[in-house]
């Protein structure tokens, strides 16, 4: 990223910052395929019981692999999706079940920045009208007044206000993301949900956009939910971080603590995959390669959802879903959902799972899921013998 490593201006832990967003046991299932009579319908368990608290002025990071449900979580909080069950309290109001019509005024307080700088801007509309949309939709300003406001916003996010009449295709990726930021900023919302705002950008551009977001946070006192799969980005911007796996939060902690003292083996494995710029340091570090793919969210594993891939798995992990709570004497801000949390300095590579073979994913390419495992295949994780197709 950049050479500056100091904490971002706005991300200094907002002491006693009151709660802006409270999510309790949020569940979102998507039906799969078309419904047939007399047949039980399958559901993707995209978000399956997520609880979190976001304080005012905070940057709350959410990390996880593709498909872990972090974007679904974002869209549920923004009420772009109707939720299956659970409770979302925003600024003291329960918004979990309110209608889209009643949600409309609240949209001025919750905004989103999207991942795809191309897909999130309508290609057939001019930038001025895209950024002016918030004013048009809520009838806040029109005509010359709207144009002035839009051009101010463009200037604030580092765009040339004279490009008011251009189409999105005439901008670079970073500039387009700035357009998205300007649009989200128009309302001066209380909460901005950033759904992987920089993952589609070049690294140098990532830094610019992140710094822009940090400046805006300091200036307008914004609260962010920052979703990413890039751990170094999340560490850089976040005050608290939640790690998601298969629709559940596995660990949640203040950013520094999560990165220095991970408790959940999944967090540990993720952290060991973060590239280290120093080659010597990198060589000395033991990388934990997780075996197999993420299991299907249509029929998630029993107990701890990570158990088929976890090197520390024991039978209780298969049987019981571990609650998200402080482990090994951590403070109340550091929660982990794990029966066998990691000690500080523990090396995950030394562990071998102690659960039944059928409960594990044995193939490195994930083609052999537990229920298809051949009886003859034993031992060797990712071994050649198992390759049947």
């Amino acid at each position, binding site marked *: 990223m950049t050479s500056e490593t100091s904490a971002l201006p706005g991300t200094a832990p907002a002491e006693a910052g009151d709660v802006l967003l409270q999510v309790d046991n949020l569940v979102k299932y998507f039906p799969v395929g078309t419904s047939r009579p007399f047949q039980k319908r399958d559901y993707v368990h995209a978000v399956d019981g997520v609880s979190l608290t976001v304080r005012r002025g905070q940057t709350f990071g959410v990390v996880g692999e593709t498909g872990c449900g972090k974007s679904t979580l974002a869209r549920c909080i923004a009420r772009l999706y109707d939720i299956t069950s659970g409770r979302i309290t925003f600024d003291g109001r329960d918004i979990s079940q309110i209608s889209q019509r009643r949600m409309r005024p609240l949209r001025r307080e919750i905004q989103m920045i999207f991942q795809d700088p191309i897909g999130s801007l*309508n290609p057939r509309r001019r930038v001025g009208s895209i950024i002016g949309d*918030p004013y048009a939709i809520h009838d806040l300003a029109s005509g010359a007044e709207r144009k002035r406001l839009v051009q101010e916003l463009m200037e604030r996010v580092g765009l040339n206000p004279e490009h008011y009449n251009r189409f999105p295709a005439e901008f670079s990726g970073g500039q387009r993301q700035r357009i998205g930021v300007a649009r989200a900023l128009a309302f001066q919302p209380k909460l901005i949900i950033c759904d992987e705002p920089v993952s589609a950008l070049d690294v140098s551009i990532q830094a610019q956009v992140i710094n822009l977001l940090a400046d805006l946070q300091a200036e307008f006192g914004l609260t962010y939910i920052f979703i990413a799969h890039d751990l170094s980005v999340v560490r850089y911007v976040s005050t608290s971080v939640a790690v998601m796996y298969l629709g559940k939060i596995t660990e949640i902690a203040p950013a520094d603590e999560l990165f220095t003292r991970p408790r959940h083996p999944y967090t540990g494995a993720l952290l060991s995959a973060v590239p280290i710029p120093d080659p010597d340091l990198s060589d000395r570090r033991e990388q934990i390669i997780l075996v197999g793919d993420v299991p299907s969210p249509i029929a998630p594993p029993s107990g701890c959802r990570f158990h088929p891939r976890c090197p520390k798995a024991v039978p209780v992990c298969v049987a019981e879903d571990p609650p998200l709570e402080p482990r090994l004497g951590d403070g109340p801000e550091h929660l982990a959902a794990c029966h066998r949390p990691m000690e500080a300095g523990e090396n995950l590579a030394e562990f071998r799972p102690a659960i039944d073979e059928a409960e594990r994913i044995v193939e490195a390419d994930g083609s052999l899921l537990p229920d298809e495992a051949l009886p003859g295949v034993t031992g060797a994780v990712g071994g050649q013998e198992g390759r049947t197709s």
Partner: protein
Amino acid sequence: MSMVPDITGTDPGLENPLTGAGLVAKKIQGRSPWRLAYERLRQDRAAKIAFATIVVIVLLAIFAPVFATITGHGPNQQFITIGENANGGPVPPSGTFWFGTDSNGRDLFVRILYGARISLTVGVLATAISIALGVLFGLVAGYIGGWVDSLIARLVDVMLSIPFLVLAIALAYRVGPSLWVVIFIVGVLSFTYPARIVRGQVISIKGKEYIEAARALGSGPWRIMFIDLLPNVMAQVIVYGTLLIPLAIVAEATLSYLGVGIPPPTSDWGAMISDASGYFQYGYWWYLLFPSVALLITTLAFNILGDSVRDAFDPRGGGLFV
């Protein structure tokens, strides 16, 4: 057609031959699909000829009264003495009657010009109705989805399964023929194709993040449909609209041919062809030929232009059979 045209059309770089700086300063402009299509159309000779033909036909239709004055023959004026032969039949083309006369001794040339007004009016207005309905139903079906979509889809299926002519004749007979009835029938009965096209496009677009962004900003469904989705389906709508105009013209001519279209004595190509077909066998060739050629040229010009417009909007840059 297959070549992507010059970047800006006019080259500002050449305007500064002394410094040569113009070449550097010349920017590659982002071009909207509309601009690209326009550039492609400008390169397409068939499109240009078709467009010129349509312009001529429109001008002839607009200035039909001028020709009526020049020839001194009104469109419904009967010339029983000079316009009919000894048997009361049509007279062939001459200096007085450029295209000859019809069975009632009326000037065929003037009547064809007035007939163009009917054809173009029906073609454009019926297409407008069809596109408006198609866009509305397509947007609603595609964006709202669910049971609304199923309902509209069934409606479209039912309408497609009823033969157009049978329904049109039944309606026209029931309501009584007039210009507006014909426009309405042709327009309403042909909304199904644009509706399908728009619905398909909308379904492919509505999952895009900019639609989510619009919802996150608080846009209601109507605003999303008409402000966010419609501009993205307009290209297809324009293409289909251009191809729909000749279909509507032919449909009108067909209805008039069958006697349930524009009521006489208003001059109309379909009705003229219908009348003339009874006289053709007796050697009155001009009576059938001129209205038929007028109809042919008009629909052909619109069809060729429509094809070119479609090719011009094709992101793959055209080719003959796309």
